[in-house]
């Protein structure tokens, strides 16, 4: 059992990690020296932060890495209590069979400031026995004292050519073929996110094991939040309640994230402008607003309320007929 391709083909060593050429050599040096400071990996989703952390831990800790590695992801309870108890209990014990212990915490930017402060203290106290690897999307959301205690590595979106190279390796191992156009499309939609790229590849392969541009597009359109065009049209028609109800259904019941929704709204609006359904002035005004609410959502507001507010901006617009 090897699971989905994203897991099956997850690089196991630092050598294998794709992209991040500016980071890997420095991490290898840590391995050679047998020592490492606290690390912070920042960067967008799917660029290899977790993969690198796992690979680094294995190489650093050797045979008994599992016993000396603690992984806490954002779904685990990570309030102050967890930081104070679990991490403390793990990190204060001396490592067995490895030079030290490693604690990996992902999505640290989603931890509350209080928990971050508690974490900071733990990082100070157990420097002799443990090292931390923290990962986050935005380092700006991490309190300064933690940032100053870490060597910060900025992971960048993976280059298209590197994604294509990797996809080809996977395709070959899985006995599927993909046309050049198909791979280009995957790269375009993946936006530097290897996880998404591999998922699109595998999903496309379930349609046909000769992957074409068409099958990739089919996957992309199925993976997108649905009903967005309908929501926009209701709002443009002045039927606010209808649009709002549908938005709530999609977000609350189907569980679509605010970030996915706003990306999709942006894409639909762009498409409508290209199709001549919106005049240029309306278009640019809407884009201005989409950007504004996008920022508010990422800042940590309630995505649903922000998107409802965005919908009211469509109310005052008319569609070109």
């Amino acid at each position, binding site marked *: *059992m*090897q*699971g*989905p391709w*994203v*897991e099956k083909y997850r690089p196991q060593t630092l050598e294998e990690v794709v992209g991040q050429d500016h980071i890997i050599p420095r991490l290898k040096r840590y391995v050679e020296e047998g020592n490492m400071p606290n690390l912070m990996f920042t960067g967008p*989703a799917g660029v290899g932060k*977790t993969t690198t952390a*796992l690979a680094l831990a294995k190489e650093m800790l050797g045979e008994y890495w599992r016993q000396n590695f603690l*992984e806490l*992801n*954002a*779904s685990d309870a990570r309030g102050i209590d967890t930081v104070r108890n679990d991490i403390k209990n793990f990190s204060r014990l001396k490592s067995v069979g490895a030079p030290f212990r490693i604690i990996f915490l*992902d*999505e640290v930017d989603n931890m*509350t*400031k*209080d928990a971050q402060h508690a974490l900071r203290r733990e990082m100070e106290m157990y420097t002799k026995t443990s090292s931390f690897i923290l990962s986050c999307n935005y380092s700006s*959301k991490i309190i300064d004292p933690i940032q100053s205690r870490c060597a910060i590595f900025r992971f960048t979106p993976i280059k298209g050519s590197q994604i294509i190279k990797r996809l080809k390796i996977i395709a070959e191992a*899985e*006995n599927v*073929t993909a046309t050049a156009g198909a791979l280009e499309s995957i790269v375009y939609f993946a936006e530097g996110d290897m996880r998404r790229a591999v*998922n*699109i590849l*595998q*999903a496309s*392969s*379930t*349609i*046909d*094991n*000769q992957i074409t541009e068409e099958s990739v597009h089919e*996957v992309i359109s*199925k*993976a*997108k939040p649905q009903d967005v065009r309908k929501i926009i049209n209701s709002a443009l028609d*002045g039927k*606010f*309640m209808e649009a*709002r109800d549908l938005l*709530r259904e999609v977000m*609350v*019941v189907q569980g679509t*994230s605010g970030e*996915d929704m706003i990306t999709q709204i942006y894409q639909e609006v762009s498409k409508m402008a290209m199709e001549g359904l919106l005049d240029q002035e309306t278009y640019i005004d809407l884009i201005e607003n989409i950007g504004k*609410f996008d920022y*508010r959502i990422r*800042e*940590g*507001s*309630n995505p*649903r*309320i*922000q998107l*409802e*507010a965005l919908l*009211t*901006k469509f*109310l*005052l617009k008319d569609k070109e007929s």
Partner: protein
Amino acid sequence: MLWTEKYNPKNFDEVLGNAKAKDEIEDWINAWMVGEHPKPLLLVGPPGTGKTTLAHLAAQEFADSIELNASDKRSYDILLRTIGEASATSSLFNQGLKLIILDEVDGIHGTDDRGGVRAISKIIKEGHHPLIMMANDPYSKRIKSLKTKCQVINIKKVHTNSIIALLKRICIKEGVDFEEHVLRTLAKQSKGDLRSAINDLEIMARGKKSITSADLEVISKKDDIHNIFDSVRTVLKSKNPQRIREAMRVEADPAFILELITENVPREYEKKDEIEEAYEMISQADTYLGRAFQTRNYGYWKYTYDLMSLGVALSKDETYRKFARYANSSVYTLLSKSRAKRDLRDRVADKIGGKTHSSRRVVREQFPYLEMMFQDNDLARELADYFNLDDAEVKLFRSRKIPKMKKTKPKKSSQKDTENKVEKKESSAVAKKEGKKEKEVKPQKSAPRKTKSTPKKSKPSQNKDVKKLAKEKEASNQKNSNTKKKSSSPEDKEKQVSLFSFK
């Protein structure tokens, strides 16, 4: 034991008020007892007036009863099955009658409880079982069709004096000294909701020797939703800053107040630009809520309060002189209706996240792709296995159950075979799979027959399935594919032979 349970009426005489309703229910029970089959009962009335109590009292008169309430999922199937089981054991004799109680029928949800109302209609039509249903909202669209088929009994609010009398009795039994006016205030505040009056009394009096007006503070501080709705009404109706600020003095989470204001803005405001402006204020108010939460600096709340109250209030050109029906946020309804679904989503996300080192959020973003992968039987089986998902959890990604692994899959292999002919360059890879497949297939059954009918989708899965096998026996496979490379497709026999020998 809660006082609301402890002082629950033990028989119809003890039920306060609603004398007419009690008579009707007793008549209805008697009709069943003499072998008639009267229409089902539909008890309609506000919360805390005794609908459930009456139904339970009625249940005592029957041999047995079964109850479903709003927290049960009530789709067509579930309703019929549960009730079907109940009826299967009932006999024609009265002593065998099983009473069916359906609480909160107006809460049956459109999509989640698909067909719930239809199922109820069916049960009514068969008419074998005594059935009592309860609903809060007499105007609910969901129970409109039911009303015509039922005997509707309106349960009215309990009169303040009756409530006072009961509260007195409770105080005496519990040995609590009381001042008359305290109980009167309690009774009035409850607005006919007996249950909340008893609850309030219990909060004040439990474990104490006496209650005084000072104890009322405890209760009055506990703001109920009505007070919040009053605040929302003031914000939306008024433009008077003084009154609006006053209205914000309500004990509730600002996020909740904001949610209610948000819900009702478009119910009160009619002009598009008013709605837009109000929402701009709401959006900013919400931004400060987020900042307060993230920084733990709750000083930001003051901006939230001002923006969502004054900001929203001043977004209207003029005050409306109309009656608008305000509502609780549909988000809460959606949340409670979809709880089971969301729990399932989280459970699955946790399982997958555990295997893939990702958080729920990250896993959820991959759901659409997993959904597509799960359409493929073999891959679905493999993934379900890998993530350790049970049948219910697999349902999140595909509606049908994954068919059991079969020893023979002639369809698929034949498909592969035709492809083989067409796609020469693929031949080696396909052949490899082909070969492996054949191993499981009885030789004579093997090749090209049902090619056309094979759905496209089933192909790739097979690859993987086969692939997996292939990996397990790499060496054999290697040789196998090599032999295959040279041979062209029709030589199934040879393939089989070689494979079997390896086996």
